[in-house]
């Protein structure tokens, strides 16, 4: 302990300081060190930019054959994904409409389930039970965040699928949009809840007290004052939750069934949610052992990654707009 305290704040600078003041040579050296270190630190921050540029360049260049060989029209317009269709006349069919629809369907369902729960958690922590919330719920939420996504998928695989098998059409495994939506919902609840809670904390006390003084019940205050006042944060949370759900791969891959056929809502109704399906991330994951042997399929998968990248960029822009709206409304 005492040895550790030697590393604490006040003592260490002393030798360097006395040196800097008394000896000119040392002073020059520390100045030089100061200048060099500034650039090294800048490099540490700058590497972020380099990486983003590299990611964009490499994804685009690998996805390029999708434009030249497959064609964007058939990529975004066709539902046929069949590498063998090309036998005899060159390139296989790589229509990505099914995985794109799958991604949006799964994420939409996940958000429908997650948002009410996330808001409940946020309200619980910040308003109805702040002490229990701070003591137990916040740590619990952190554990939720810490559980690896592939473990969520595994839990879905061994616990949720057998459950859904009971209500699925005969012969089905229970995998599909519903299973993936539930698993993703559990995964994004913490994201939406913590960001919404931050927003609720930031609501000025006066608003809440004013509402109570006017005779509003606690629930009326929550619904008509607190939640609307924290709207910008809640939107940010939902958008980030959307991005996270959109990008999740393995957890979804374990429970969705990985079948590139759009379930028919007209034929099966709600049963379509229990048909095996696919998403963009699952289609990418599915190709992991075919990267080298199937160049067009790999290009198409890189194009799916580009689509995911665009969705991510869009999400960041939306969050920024929401943040600007928040500043605007406060001013």
């Amino acid at each position, binding site marked *: 302990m005492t040895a550790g305290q030697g*590393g*604490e*704040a006040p003592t260490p*600078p002393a030798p360097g*300081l006395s040196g*800097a003041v008394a000896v000119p040579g040392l002073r020059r050296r520390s100045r030089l*060190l*100061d200048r060099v*270190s*500034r650039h*090294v*630190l*800048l490099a*540490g*921050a700058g*590497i*972020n*930019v380099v*990486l*983003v540029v590299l*990611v964009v360049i490499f*994804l685009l*260049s*690998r996805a390029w054959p999708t434009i030249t060989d497959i064609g964007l029209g058939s990529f975004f317009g066709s539902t046929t994904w069949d590498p063998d269709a090309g036998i005899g006349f060159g390139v296989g069919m790589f229509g990505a409409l099914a995985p794109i629809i799958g991604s949006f369907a799964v994420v939409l369902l996940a958000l429908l389930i997650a948002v009410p*729960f996330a808001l*409940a*958690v946020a309200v619980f922590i910040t308003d*109805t039970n702040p002490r229990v919330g701070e003591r137990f*719920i916040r740590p*619990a939420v952190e*554990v939720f965040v*810490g*559980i*690896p996504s*592939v*473990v969520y*998928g*595994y*839990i879905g*695989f*061994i*616990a949720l699928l057998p459950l859904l098998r009971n209500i699925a059409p005969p012969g089905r495994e229970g995998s599909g949009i519903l299973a993936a939506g539930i698993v993703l919902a*559990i995964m994004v609840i913490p994201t939406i809840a913590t960001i919404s809670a931050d927003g609720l904390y930031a609501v000025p006390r006066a608003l809440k007290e004013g509402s109570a003084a006017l005779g509003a019940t*606690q629930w*009326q205050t929550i*619904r008509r004052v607190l939640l609307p006042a924290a709207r910008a944060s809640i939107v940010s949370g939902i958008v980030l939750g959307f*991005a996270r759900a959109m*990008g999740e*791969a*393995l957890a979804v891959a*374990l429970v969705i069934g990985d079948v590139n056929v759009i379930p028919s809502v007209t034929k099966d109704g709600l049963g379509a949610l229990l048909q095996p399906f696919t998403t963009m*991330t699952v289609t*990418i*994951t599915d190709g992991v*052992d075919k990267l080298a042997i199937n160049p067009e399929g790999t290009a198409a998968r*890189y194009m799916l*990654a580009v689509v*995911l*990248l665009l969705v*991510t960029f869009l999400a960041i822009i939306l969050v920024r707009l929401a943040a600007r709206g928040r500043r605007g409304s406060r001013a």
Partner: protein
Amino acid sequence: MNRRLRRNNSIAIGVVRGMVLLLVALLVWMIVLMLSKGWSELTRGGFYTSVPNIGGPGGGIGPQLFNTIYVLVLSMLIVLPIGLAGGIFFAEYAGTGRVTNLLRRASETLATLPSIVVGLFGYAFFVQATNSHPSRLAAALSLTVINLPYVVRISEDALRALPPALREGSLGLGATRWQTVSRVLVPAALPALITGAIIAAGRVFGEAAAILFTGSNFSLTAHSNYSLNPFDSGDTLAVDLYVFRIQAEPNVVTDARQYADGVAAVLVLAVLLFNVGARLLGRAAVRRLQRTA
């Protein structure tokens, strides 16, 4: 009217509390389920050291555990210095100009990238562009891409949380900025930095999608036996939780389940340990700071 309002109020608040309770119950149930399924594995001698034996008795997670720790250490060795440098820059040097803005946006973008996208990038950049094959090094570098923005942020937050008097005092005594950072601020922020590093390590431990593309060999049983070569490939624990499903033939899935149960239990246990560890360290650090203050 008033009575109806009051009734609605208590119903609504009751629903909120019920939903939170449901979630907590779900969390506890998931953890108990995973631990109980894998309990016989977790407590079995040799589970942590022997090689997997799918479909037969015994067997363990030895090579995968070794590989996971290897990749974790390697990627932390790369990401911690770079991330700390970035965090120090943002906290102590960055202004509010356009360059800073660009750097921050890049960091945010990196933080939002799906790990599967990083996996594809890692395959193109760290594997193909270097004429190499999937390896631990490529996996560690891909994990660095995922974790860098996170480490930058925790470092920045840790430095910003320090009392301004520390900084001003040091600068006022004539220390250069670098002296202030290296001898005053970083040592003072060390407890928070360690906590953050543990959480970052926990993220690496459970990451699978990026490693799947850059370092995996898609096999539960093929592995580099405890070699220290960074250019060897191998599955980590988290990766195998996916691989067991695609690699194992349908009739073997049941056998692979026992292995997967054990792996899942180890991962959940690790999360709890990382979480508790970070929390305890954070608390101890606060106590120590209070004592010295």
